[in-house]
């Protein structure tokens, strides 16, 4: 039943926060191992005695575990497989589950034998920035040879092969106090605030809250620290206003108390259960925040300090105490601080043979292991540590065989979140590290993250911070009674570098940045901390230099002669740990990327076999193919012909519609539009044109006067939202004195264009009998309210985009589908046809109406032939700037109609216009085709275009030059109105 010592040779017989009753099988590089629930992948590998876990980025050096937490630079694996493959996953944060599959990466053919390991012998060539100095000759070789080679060698893991099968989602959370980190400081803060009734959100990235309390053999109130943590967690669970989130990392601190956090909801399972996401992104808005994120331990810098088997002391303790896994049997401890003794004692307690405790400080204490005043000068081994070379203070050199070196260079607060607003960490000489500097508003820092390196101080700081937050929120709160803590000793004198090392001395393990690289950067003038980072890439790997940055800065400072304080840190940026892009996208992917707007009659259009197209958020029917129509052209031709010869129905519900009321409504229109409104009578509609203040055309549409002080404005589909916002701006910002009220009614009304010579007949059949639709009673540009035969209230507008005798009929949206069916049924004897956007587009081009392609934001009213509409009797938005000479220059490209000289020729929008017989180069460019369509009415292609001095050139022939489509077509320039220029059809 149990995995047993034979399969987990390095598992301790007892202890640890693992569940020995739940053995879990997993695979690494194809081999099967066993671990326990409560393990991480890393701890399970430690327990199984696996030391070699990966290869470094540049030199492909063998690497093992350095850490036990998220700061791990070495042990990156590809987790899972196929579409679920996650490259660059830190083994230290993967919670073990049965069936887990992991593989090492960036090696070929195998982890143990990696061909590119030859790079290590080329080390001096591959020094920092070498690629900036070479690969330049011959020039053509860069893209063909050098770069592909570099790209092949670079990169770490391999991306997944197919769309991510798992789901992600996002959620919002709100609280009075956000506590980040559930170590002693965070737990104390949460208890204090929670008991006071504050809404507390306590977040920890680990699956087991407690922070270092889980990793140390400390006693709190005489009990193992882990038990105190468990009790605190249990109490927090009972407080109604407290919420504890595990497996969640706060990754970014944004403005005004907004924090981003990533919850790994089901990463500890092979796959998420049905209906549940793999991960969830939390967007947290809090009033105060206590950052209690702890600290990262620093490696020491000596030769070949990257060998598998060289580990951080704190990690060694974590593996031993929390996971009951022994990282080595014969250990040397090397530390410049008092944690060395703690580590040695823990290792002894775990049954390891601790052969030496090396400490450059001269004050040896009694720990039962040999203490050497001195330094480890070099680690020795091939694919793993076999021994160390020690330089004692007395100058003697010793080699000691060992399979584990536990090192500690002191601790650096995990202060990233304090710096996301640009606050610079400040150097603390006493602690020999950077501490949080100017904090984001509302944030406090407690515990090791603030340099409180003892549990006692961390607990007290947590309480203090929570009390301060409560006070700021006006809540009464009492300090919680804190446990007594067994003696702690945190003496430290930073060593920074071991002098006289041999072998490569790594600072940034993952990016293979060694002390020599920093020296080179300094030598070449890349002396600013940021230059050094960029030139050497120190701190730019997936771990973002959590263990490397300060060591690098110390080395740089030593070489430049500046202090570390003056050298300063590089900039901290979100996220604190890398975050899956899927989580940041949440459910916004695939068809759910953005919401969809559907018109009321969508289901009807689907039934009619419509082909739909995206127009902004809408789906609109493009055309309605019928059997026997091989391409869209046949369908569209049929739709146009049927409309022009009988009657067609088109869903135009997507137009923006704005109900405008109030005593000053007319005045408001006067100021919004270029043309005048004072003469518009009740029951009439008029075309209107709006400019932006810079004089360019913004939008067009119709305005119908429904009552004395009531108008209905329509906008183009594309600009509906923008025009409404513009009107709000005009009203609230420019002219708050106007007594006008307007609301969007775009969704209230479904609207259908009924167009064609038989349109009136069709309407007659659906409109209640009492309404007179004769030309006299309801002429062109009339607008009115009426009832349909089934009593539906409707609005009827006699307006036309197609150029036909046409109406737009608007009915309440819920009646839309019913009414369109009614129209189709009533129109059947008349030959009614539904038509889509394509036919609509063809007809509007035939009629010379401008639309989206012409309203490009780059055109003026003059350009589009609307010059005469510009009122000179009033002020309106855009009036003044539209008058600028450059905007009214007759030499500008202006609207024309275009027809191919060879009637069978085709041309398309986007073709440029040049004179006949001239070379089609930029200097000859005179404009372009804005829109083109096959005209079923004329039987050939037609288009609209903007042509320099166009209106003066009717009758001239030009060439539409379209090299992208490989076309060159001779066109005749003409009036833009192809069909019914006199507008007779409109008025019958």
């Amino acid at each position: 039943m149990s995995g047993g010592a034979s399969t987990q040779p390095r598992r301790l017989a007892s202890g640890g926060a693992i569940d020995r009753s739940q053995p879990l099988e997993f695979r690494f590089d194809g081999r099967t191992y066993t671990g326990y629930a409560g393990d991480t992948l890393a701890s399970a590998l430690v327990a199984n005695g696996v030391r070699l876990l990966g290869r470094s980025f540049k030199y492909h050096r063998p690497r093992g575990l350095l850490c036990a937490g998220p700061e791990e630079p070495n042990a990156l694996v590809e987790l899972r497989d196929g579409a679920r493959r996650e490259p660059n996953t830190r083994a230290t944060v993967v919670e073990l589950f049965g069936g887990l599959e992991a593989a090492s990466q960036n090696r070929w053919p195998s982890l143990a034998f990696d061909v590119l390991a030859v790079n290590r012998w080329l080390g001096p060539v591959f020094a920092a920035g070498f690629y900036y100095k070479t690969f330049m000759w011959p020039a053509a070789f860069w893209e063909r040879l050098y770069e592909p080679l570099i790209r092949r060698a670079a990169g770490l893991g391999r991306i997944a092969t197919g769309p991510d099968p798992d789901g992600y989602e996002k959620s919002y959370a709100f609280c009075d106090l956000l506590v980040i980190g559930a170590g002693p400081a965070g737990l104390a803060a949460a208890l204090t605030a929670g008991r006071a009734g504050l809404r507390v959100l306590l977040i920890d990235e680990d699956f087991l809250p407690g922070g270092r309390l889980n990793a140390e053999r400390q006693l709190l109130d005489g009990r193992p620290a882990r038990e105190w943590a468990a009790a605190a967690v249990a109490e927090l669970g009972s407080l109604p206003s407290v919420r504890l989130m595990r497996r969640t990392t706060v990754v970014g601190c944004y403005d005004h108390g907004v924090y981003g956090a990533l919850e790994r909801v089901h990463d500890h399972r092979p796959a998420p259960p049905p209906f549940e996401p793999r991960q969830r992104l939390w967007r947290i808005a809090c009033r105060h925040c206590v950052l209690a994120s702890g600290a990262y331990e620093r490696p020491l810098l000596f030769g070949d300090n990257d060998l598998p088997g060289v580990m951080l002391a704190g990690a060694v303790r974590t593996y031993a105490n929390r996971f009951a896994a022994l990282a080595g049997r014969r250990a040397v401890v090397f530390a410049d601080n008092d944690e060395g003794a703690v580590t040695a004692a823990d290792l002894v307690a775990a049954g390891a043979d601790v052969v030496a405790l090396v400490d450059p400080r001269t004050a040896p204490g009694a720990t039962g292991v040999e203490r050497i005043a001195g330094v480890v000068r070099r680690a020795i081994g091939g694919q793993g540590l076999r021994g160390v070379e020690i330089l004692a203070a007395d100058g003697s050199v010793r080699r000691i065989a060992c399979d584990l070196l536990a090192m500690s260079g002191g601790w650096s607060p995990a202060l990233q979140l304090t710096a996301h607003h640009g606050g610079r960490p400040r150097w603390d000489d006493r602690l020999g590290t950077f501490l949080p500097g100017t904090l984001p508003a509302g944030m406090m820092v407690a515990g090791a993250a603030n340099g409180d390196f003892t549990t006692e101080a961390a607990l007290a700081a947590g309480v203090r911070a929570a009390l301060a937050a409560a006070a700021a929120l006006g809540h009464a709160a009492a300090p919680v009674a804190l446990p007594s803590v067994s003696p702690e000793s945190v003496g430290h004198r930073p060593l920074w570098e071991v002098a006289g090392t041999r072998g490569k001395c790594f600072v940034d393990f993952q990016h293979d940045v060694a002390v020599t690289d920093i020296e080179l950067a300094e030598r070449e003038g890349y002396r600013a901390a940021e230059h050094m980072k960029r030139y050497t890439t120190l701190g730019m790997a997936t771990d973002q230099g959590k263990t490397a940055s300060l060591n690098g800065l110390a080395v740089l400072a030593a070489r430049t002669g500046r202090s570390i304080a003056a050298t300063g840190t590089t900039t901290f940026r979100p996220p604190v740990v890398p975050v899956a892009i899927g989580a940041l996208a949440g459910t916004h992917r695939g068809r759910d990327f953005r919401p969809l707007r559907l018109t009321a009659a969508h289901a009807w259009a689907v039934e009619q076999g419509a082909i739909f197209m995206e127009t902004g958020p809408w789906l609109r029917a493009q055309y309605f193919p019928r059997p026997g129509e091989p391409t869209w052209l046949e369908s569209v031709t049929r739709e146009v012909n049927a409309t022009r010869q009988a009657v067609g129905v088109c869903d135009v519900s997507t137009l923006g519609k704005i109900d405008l009321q109030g005593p000053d409504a007319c005045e408001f229109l006067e100021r919004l539009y270029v043309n005048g409104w004072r003469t518009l009578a009740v029951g009439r509609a008029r075309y209107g044109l709006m400019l932006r203040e810079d004089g360019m055309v913004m939008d067009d549409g119709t305005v119908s006067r429904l009552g004395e002080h009531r108008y209905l404005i329509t906008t183009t589909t594309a600009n509906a939202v923008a025009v409404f916002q513009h009107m709000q701006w005009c009203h609230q910002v420019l002219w708050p004195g106007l007594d006008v009220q307007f609301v969007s009614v775009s969704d209230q009304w479904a609207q259908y264009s009924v167009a064609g010579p038989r349109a009136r007949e069709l309407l007659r059949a659906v409109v209640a009998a009492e309404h007179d639709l004769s030309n006299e009673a309801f002429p062109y540009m009339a607008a009115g309210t009426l009832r349909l035969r089934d009593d539906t209230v409707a609005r009827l507008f006699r307006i036309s985009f197609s150029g036909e005798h046409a109406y737009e009929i608007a009915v309440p949206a819920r009646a839309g589908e019913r009414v369109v069916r009614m129209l189709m049924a009533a129109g059947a004897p008349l030959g009614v046809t539904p038509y889509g956007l394509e036919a609509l587009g063809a007809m509007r081009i035939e009629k010379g109406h401008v639309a989206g392609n012409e309203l490009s934001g780059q055109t003026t009213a003059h350009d589009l032939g609307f010059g005469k509409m510009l009122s000179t009797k009033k002020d309106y938005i855009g009036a003044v700037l539209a008058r600028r000479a450059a905007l009214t220059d007759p030499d500008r490209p202006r609207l024309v109609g275009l027809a191919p000289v060879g009637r069978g020729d085709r041309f398309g929008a986007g073709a440029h216009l040049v004179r006949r017989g001239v070379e089609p180069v930029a200097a000859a460019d005179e404009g372009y085709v804005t829109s083109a369509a096959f005209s079923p009415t004329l039987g050939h292609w037609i288009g609209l275009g903007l042509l320099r001095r166009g209106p003066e050139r009717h009758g001239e022939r030009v060439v539409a030059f379209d090299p992208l489509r490989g076309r060159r077509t001779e066109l005749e320039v003409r009036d833009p109105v192809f069909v019914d220029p006199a507008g007779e059809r409109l008025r019958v």
Partner: protein
Amino acid sequence: MRYSIFSVLRQALAGNRGWAPAWREPEPKRHYDVVIVGGGGHGLATAYYLARVHGVRNVAVLEKNYVGSGNVGRNTTIIRSNYLLPGNIPFYEWSLKLWEGLEQELNYNAMVSQRGVLNLFHTEAQRDLFVRRGNSMRMHGVDAELLDVAGVRRIAPFLDFDNARFPIRGGLLQARGGTVRHDAVAWGYARAADRLGVDVIQQCEVTGIRVEAGAAVGLETTRGYIGAGRIGLACAGNSSRVAALAGLRLPIESHVLQAFVSEGLKPVIPGVITFGAGHFYVSQSDKGGLVFGGDIDGYNSYAQRGNLPTVEDVCEGGMALMPFLGRVRLLRSWGGIMDMSMDGSPIIDRTPVGRLYLNAGWCYGGFKATPASGWCFAHLLARDEPHAVARAYRLDRFAEGRLVDEKGQGPFPNRH
């Protein structure tokens, strides 16, 4: 020392001890013929071309922070000349030509990598616009290709063709577009300019512009007063602040744009791809990180950092376009402050203050412009007349209405 494979090998054998600083750290002189404010790509390139092309060597570049600390060191490295308007194409094409010979010219490998820029379109209206643009490019002698869906699939089979909210209908490809290693551009120009005698002065912030009788004569700086025959401002993102020192008010707002890089990955993405229906574009660096970005955050800011909704918006675009990105992790995000000009196009011109010249308003597109911007600004500073390919970038175009508005968005900087 000249950089080459031989010097690299020679130095490797000598323990890399013989390398010299890439540029000097001179003390500022009392007076220069030309002082450039801003040690970004444009400022350094300007100094270099002043020295190299115009023989003006008594030049200083003043940088308030370290060289390359501005946008040149934080952009998404895309170069291209696929513009729409005749005011833009010749300029950006000239830039691309200069990129194509840059490494040999500077003796610095900036990794100019022409792996193509593909702009996807999703509607017919977008296609029409791209066709108009591509044809315009071709008429300027610039390469452009219209791809149908199959053509896009050939280049980027991993895009979402089958389940997209906004299906891909094709793309405009500029094969000569690509990426360049951002930092190397700043460093390469700094080193090359330095070798021609230009003083690159870091940690030197300009705090005042001394104007006498309507003309600028020198600069107050954190390292003392520096006299100048002519002054060129090239302080992207901060142009308004620096120009205000001479009493100028510019047609510019400062906005933040974020960029993102993923963890290092084995190569997957061939060139640059932009999503036409969301705010997302991406390329993969030689180091393996996916470098991507999207829209600006959209409000005035000098804070060099962005906010979470934009991060989400960009990643949503990424996932919509490339659903295999789900498990790729975002490693780092950062922001840069850009001069968003009122028509989305730059300014290279004289100013109303004598002997004070302006290079500004690059929005999110000035990296690709670096060589040509330096070339044209140097020309203007040396000859006091605009260079032919930068003719459209005049300061008075706004008042006159000769705007260079590629997107037709009007004077709303956050919409460009």
